[in-house]
């Protein structure tokens, strides 16, 4: 994310004009006939009664030549990136489709530009859940705001600190997410991170997930996005963000009787909570028709009792006062806010409003898994025998959870459910059953190796079929990112992008429901949202979004690079003033699809 130069040199201008030329090709090289130039398109359009190029009955011959043709590469890029950038087709042509896919499937083989790597070096992504809680949790913020939030003045100061801190953590995570989505050469990893985040959704709008969501994506999703499904399942199951979002941190054996120092205090642990157990089967593994019963949900919930948050890391207990929290956290992270309300931590170590945390502890003695922020509390665990989808699990404590996750990850319903969702994401809203079956077979054969399942999909006739090209409607998220990629945009400020996503009903990291954002046309095509896109396209194309510069200019004959597009779109662009053309392309019906 560099600042654009104030006065471009001649060479830069020349380079830009070149980019402009390929710009339209990139924008519009979206459909099957990417190699055709505009005149041919127009001639063809004149003959055909229907100007859109649809050949649903054509069965392509899936061979290397077809895959490596311009239209083959354009299709592959549409599905394995957030949208083509200028020069992408040529790069893949030079590399060959097979090598390109091989690289994308092992992302660490692709070097990251320093800007892309750097953007992830922020506390929101690098600190552990425990340390995030200690440094940015409500009690710490109360101390920072110099008050317990009791008087109106204290409340105001606290509110300011809370807003700024959470705003900063969210914005840092969002900046990293959007920068990588736009600029990372590891595009398939970015898409798969998005896919799995929604599959294992958490919402940063829910309480403590304010501070954990970015870290969750970074540590529980991204590293495993192309790895083994079981690893992903385990990482999400143990992460504080998921434990909090689906309430498992409270899930407690019905027999548990808390020992409370204060007889008036109420325990947060009031027995069984099935929420995570239910979604673990319905959404994360087996699928809603995956062959489990309400009894299975109850049994799985019993297995999961006691799996919660680290003491002092969100679950209360463990630390007596702010000083101890501070010692535990080590150095207080210096947050880069300009808040006047921010004060050195130690100034008022013991003011009202800081909770009494009982036993003293330091970071090294806080039990649990510091990487995930989880802690298995045997006292709250139901040690009886359980039966989950026909498997008997003997009461043994924490190991039961791994046993249950193994059973769920290897269940045939899971192979099918995951394969269906992947095929829907990459191929068609209603994916062909033949394809789902092939992918599920690979899932089972490889014990859930995601890259292998994707390889089966990329090798399939269904993936390359003409029916399945340009048939996907972009979600607002993909729409924004593809616009920025197509225009080679420089982003210094993500706020306008976050505002658009919010308005479009897809605020980043804030899907309320555990099923995550959908990626189908049915979910996203509606009148309000389409008009919003046109407003966004107009603002972006005209360089009216603060902190975002698109690099392509409006010079040159715009129709030169129109490859496949309806006659209507061509003529609308031709009739428009030059300064509007780029916006029109970004708002065209063709640009809504991929």
């Amino acid at each position, binding site marked *: 994310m560099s600042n654009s130069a104030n006065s471009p040199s001649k060479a830069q201008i020349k380079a830009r004009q070149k980019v402009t030329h390929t710009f339209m090709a990139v924008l519009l090289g979206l459909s099957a006939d990417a190699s055709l130039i505009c005149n041919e398109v127009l001639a063809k359009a004149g003959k055909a009664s229907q100007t859109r190029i649809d050949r649903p009955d054509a069965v392509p011959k899936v061979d290397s030549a077809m895959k490596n043709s311009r239209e083959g590469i354009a299709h592959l890029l549409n599905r394995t990136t957030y949208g083509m950038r200028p020069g992408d087709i040529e790069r893949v042509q030079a590399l060959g489709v097979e090598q390109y896919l091989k690289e994308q499937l092992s992302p660490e083989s692709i070097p990251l530009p320093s800007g892309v790597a750097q953007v992830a070096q922020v506390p929101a992504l690098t600190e552990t859940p425990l340390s995030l809680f200690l440094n940015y949790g409500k009690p710490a913020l109360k101390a920072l705001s110099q008050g317990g939030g009791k008087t109106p003045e204290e409340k105001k100061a606290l509110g300011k600190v809370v807003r700024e801190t959470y705003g900063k953590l969210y914005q840092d995570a969002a900046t990293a997410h959007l920068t990588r989505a736009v600029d990372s050469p590891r595009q398939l990893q970015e898409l798969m991170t998005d896919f799995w985040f929604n599959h294992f959704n958490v919402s940063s709008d829910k309480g403590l997930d304010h501070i954990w969501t970015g870290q969750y994506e970074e540590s529980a999703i991204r590293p495993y996005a192309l790895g083994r499904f079981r690893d992903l399942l385990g990482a999400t199951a143990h992460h504080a963000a998921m434990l909090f979002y689906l309430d498992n941190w409270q899930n407690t054996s019905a027999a548990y009787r808390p020992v409370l120092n204060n007889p008036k205090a109420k325990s947060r642990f009031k027995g069984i909570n099935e929420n995570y157990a239910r979604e673990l089967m319905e959404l994360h593994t087996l699928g809603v028709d995956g062959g489990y019963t309400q009894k299975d949900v109850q049994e799985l919930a019993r297995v999961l009792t006691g799996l919660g948050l680290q003491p002092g890391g969100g679950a209360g207990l463990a630390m007596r006062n702010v000083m101890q929290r501070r010692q535990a956290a080590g150095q207080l992270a210096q947050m880069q806010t300009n808040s006047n309300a921010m004060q050195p931590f130690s100034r008022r170590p013991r003011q009202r409003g800081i909770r009494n945390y009982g036993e003293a502890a330091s970071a090294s003695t806080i039990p649990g898994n510091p990487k995930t922020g989880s802690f298995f509390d045997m006292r709250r665990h139901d040690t009886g025998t359980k039966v989950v989808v026909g498997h008997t699990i003997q009461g043994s404590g924490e190991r039961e959870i791994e046993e249950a996750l193994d059973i769920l990850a290897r269940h045939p319903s899971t192979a099918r459910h995951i394969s269906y969702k992947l095929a829907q994401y990459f191929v068609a809203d209603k994916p062909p059953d033949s394809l789902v079956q092939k992918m599920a077979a690979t899932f089972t054969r490889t014990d859930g190796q995601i890259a292998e399942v994707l390889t089966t999909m990329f090798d399939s006739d269904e993936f390359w079929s003409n029916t399945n090209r340009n048939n996907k409607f972009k979600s607002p998220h993909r729409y924004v990112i593809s616009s920025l990629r197509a225009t080679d945009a420089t982003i210094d400020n993500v706020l306008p992008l976050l505002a658009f996503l919010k308005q479009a009903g897809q605020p980043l990291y804030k899907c309320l429901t555990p099923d995550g954002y959908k990626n189908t046309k049915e979910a996203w095509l509606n009148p309000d949202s*389409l008009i919003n896109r046109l407003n966004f396209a107009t*603002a972006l194309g005209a360089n009216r979004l603060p902190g975002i510069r698109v690099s392509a200019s409006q010079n040159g004959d715009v129709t030169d690079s129109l490859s496949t597009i309806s006659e209507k779109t061509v003529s*609308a662009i031709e009739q428009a003033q030059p300064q509007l053309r780029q916006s029109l392309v970004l708002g065209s019906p063709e640009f809504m699809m991929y």
Partner: protein
Amino acid sequence: MNRRDFLKTAGLATASLLVPQVNVWAKTSGSAASNSGPTNKLVVVFLRGAIDGLSVVVPYSDPNYYKVRNNIAIPPPGNQLGVLDLDGHFGLHPALEPILPLWKNKSLSFVLNSGSPDPTRSHFDAQDYMESGCPGRKATSTGWLNRLLAQLPDNHSPVRALNIGSTTPRILQGPVASATFKAELKRRRSPIDNEVIASSFERMYEGRGDSLERAFQDGMEARTTINEKLSGEQMQANGGAIQAARFGAFGKQLGKLMREEPKVQVAFLDLGGFDTHVNQGNGKGQLANHLQVLGHGLSDLAESLGDTYQRTVILVMSEFGRTVKENGNNGTDHGHGNFIWALGGAVQGGKLMGHWDGITDRSLYEGRDLPVRTDFRSVISSVIGEHLQLSSRQLQTVFPDFSSNSDTVTGLLKG
């Protein structure tokens, strides 16, 4: 040719050339062609943050009330900033004076001790449940208002569902499209309101005969309708609090739209700021300021609806109630039961509905909160069943996990 004529022509041209169903909207865009007669309407107002119901309808005749609320109780009628008497036992918050006439003309009622049966005290989860209409089931992807729309006769109007705000809320999420607009004093122009830009996009989208064209045309039509109807409502802020003025905009604008655009079936809006843990206030203060805004907005809405008020039910609800006892910060904490408000010409008002057991320790939920004696889905089911004429099978679709037979609210609407 103005924008509206242009759209009509475009729509008709499309209809004659391509897709049969498109001509339905072409027909509906002419108001004279309406033959379905006036339809009944529902407005839902969601108060986010959990409003303190006991400060809205105050049990002033119960001495317990003044015992447990030393600092935040509202004085009995006749005192300065005291409640406005409703029935000799309960009184309305003085800041809600603008809606007192509606009580007197018997078109305002409250369902006491109602709400969601789910015990959660998390705003996030409770709002989610109340909007999805499926308490306890997290993975319900559609909102109940959207499922309701799917059961109403489809009049093919792009403004059949209005949402006042900037994003589509959970309650309206689902397959039926709604039109969103901001209730602002001065309507801001978007790029698409520019004639040149709009017609360029028009040229791209018209005549495609697909779902993209349909969405485009509906979106432009909704925008045109809303902009046109509200063009005379560029109200000046008449001094006072900015927020109050903004609220006035909501009441007047929504009322005018619903009065003049007979195709509107459902409208939704939400308001925040009711999470009064600290310094809630009594007859005046934080909550009173919010209630004043709300009261004026609702009263403006009722007035500007005109005759349409007779065919409208307005439901006001919140995710849960607040603790009966005040806390140590002169505020209240997250509770359980609350009161649902019902307004409109179709409401059999002027009386309180629901069950009331007082506020003794024994009658309270977990010894601290108002109980939920009437499920919010009962209230909504009885309203939409009668008022919008949904069959019991259709009600099952709107609230799938719920059988309204077990717990009906009778007499909320005029028979």
